[in-house]
């Protein structure tokens, strides 16, 4: 129970230390893991290459169902512990047979977090209903930030207090909430209504196919060079400081401070809070991370991608 939680955390720390020893000169901090969903084999190969070149770890699947399965979210009442959420970003084609990219987006954005009375175990449950009564007990909802909490079973008001503090504990540790995993949609059709619908549903960005290297680099630098993930903040900040020689590559080649792997420390106070609005990144397109000058050889677009798409469609 609680022991399990601690054990797995310790194991994770050990694993990370091993990795650190084996590769002292490369960055031992978290590598961005992207799940790419596309029914076209050619496109899967291209997007995989695009992502690998920008130093992401890539998993590709050919359908929305497989994507949900990979994430462990395919069954009705499936629950997944927070540790299991394996990906930092999902990038999906829009037009796919069966479950479209839009359907997948909606499914992911409708996830809620459920706390068992088992402290230290946080689970993710898919639920589309705000409040439900069942035979075994009432379900109460608690909202903390962007996480919806469902407590099961609930019979004692005192439990809510306990749950709230547990949730606060969960929130401050470095864990990712499935609902916060950014989803990017790709489509070969430049249809404004489609773009708007996806953004409204919570898509992080909308890329027009064929996807270019500049698109992927921009995406990665906007989303992952900001202090989006609390656990990696310290590492990221330290990585930024000594490195200024990167021109085309978006990864620093040498990390002179492998000791930046300091997971037990609290998040650095100078970190910016993660942007909650879906379009926050567009304002940070060119200037926010000068040391990660990924686009120094590429023209950096002054406008946000969605604005650019709207401009293009007006020209047609």
């Amino acid at each position, binding site marked *: 129970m609680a022991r399990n939680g601690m054990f797995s955390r310790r194991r994770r720390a050990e694993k990370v230390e091993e990795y650190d020893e084996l590769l002292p000169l490369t960055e031992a901090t978290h590598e961005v893991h992207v799940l790419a969903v596309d029914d076209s084999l050619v*496109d899967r190969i*291209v997007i995989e290459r*695009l992502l690998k*070149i920008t130093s992401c770890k890539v998993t590709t699947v050919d359908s929305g169902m497989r994507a949900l399965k990979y994430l462990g979210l395919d069954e009705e009442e499936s629950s997944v512990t927070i540790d299991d959420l394996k990906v930092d970003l999902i990038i999906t084609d829009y037009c796919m047979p069966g479950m479209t990219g839009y359907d997948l987006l909606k499914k992911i954005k409708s996830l809620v977090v459920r706390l068992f009375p088992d402290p230290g175990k946080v689970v993710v449950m898919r639920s589309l209903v705000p409040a439900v009564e069942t035979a075994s007990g009432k379900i109460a909802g608690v909202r903390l930030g962007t996480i919806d909490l469902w407590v099961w079973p609930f019979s004692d008001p005192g439990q809510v207090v306990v749950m709230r503090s547990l949730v606060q504990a969960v929130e401050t540790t470095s864990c990712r909430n499935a609902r916060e995993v950014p989803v990017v949609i790709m489509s*070969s059709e430049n249809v404004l209504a489609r773009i708007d619908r996806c953004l409204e549903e919570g898509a992080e960005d909308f890329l027009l196919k064929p996807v270019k*290297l500049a698109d992927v680099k921009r995406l990665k630098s906007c989303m992952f060079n900001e202090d989006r993930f609390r656990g990696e903040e310290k590492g990221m900040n330290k990585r930024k400081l000594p490195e200024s020689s990167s021109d085309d590559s978006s990864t620093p080649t040498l990390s002179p401070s492998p000791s930046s792997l300091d997971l037990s420390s609290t998040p650095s106070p100078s970190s910016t809070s993660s942007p909650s609005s879906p379009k926050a990144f567009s304002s940070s397109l060119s200037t926010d991370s000068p040391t990660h000058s990924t686009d120094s050889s590429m023209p950096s677009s002054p406008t946000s991608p969605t604005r650019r798409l709207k401009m293009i469609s007006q020209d047609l």
Partner: protein
Amino acid sequence: MLGLGVERLRGDMNRLLALLFHQGVLDEQFLQLQQLQDESSPNFVSEVVNIYFQESEKLLRNLRSLLMDREFSDYKKMGVHLNQFIGSSSSIGAKRVRNVCVAFRVASEQNNRLGCLRALELLEHEYCYLKNKLHELFQIEQQRLLAAAVRYPVQH
């Protein structure tokens, strides 16, 4: 002598590429693919293109067998194949093939069987041309690499 060969081959390659661009057979996306090729993935372009060829030939076979069927009426299914073809052609920069597919799709949306048959023939023709030219391109590239390797035996 071999040195001259390398330069001439590079010239041949550039001329062929320029021609294909000029004819609208290829577009900028093909250059994007070349950007993804490097020492860690030195044959990326030809690998992707070969997969594109395999997928395309499957699609062409499906399209043809659909249309050859006298009882044919499943235009929706044809549309699905065409969408796939449009998508993959666009991803590798095969502009003319893609455009023919788009026109083909219009005919299929209008349930125009004759129009579809014509479009299919045109598509097969364009696809053949593309395939031949790209094979030619890859051959020149291979020869150039071999010639360069002989000229500069110790590369690194």
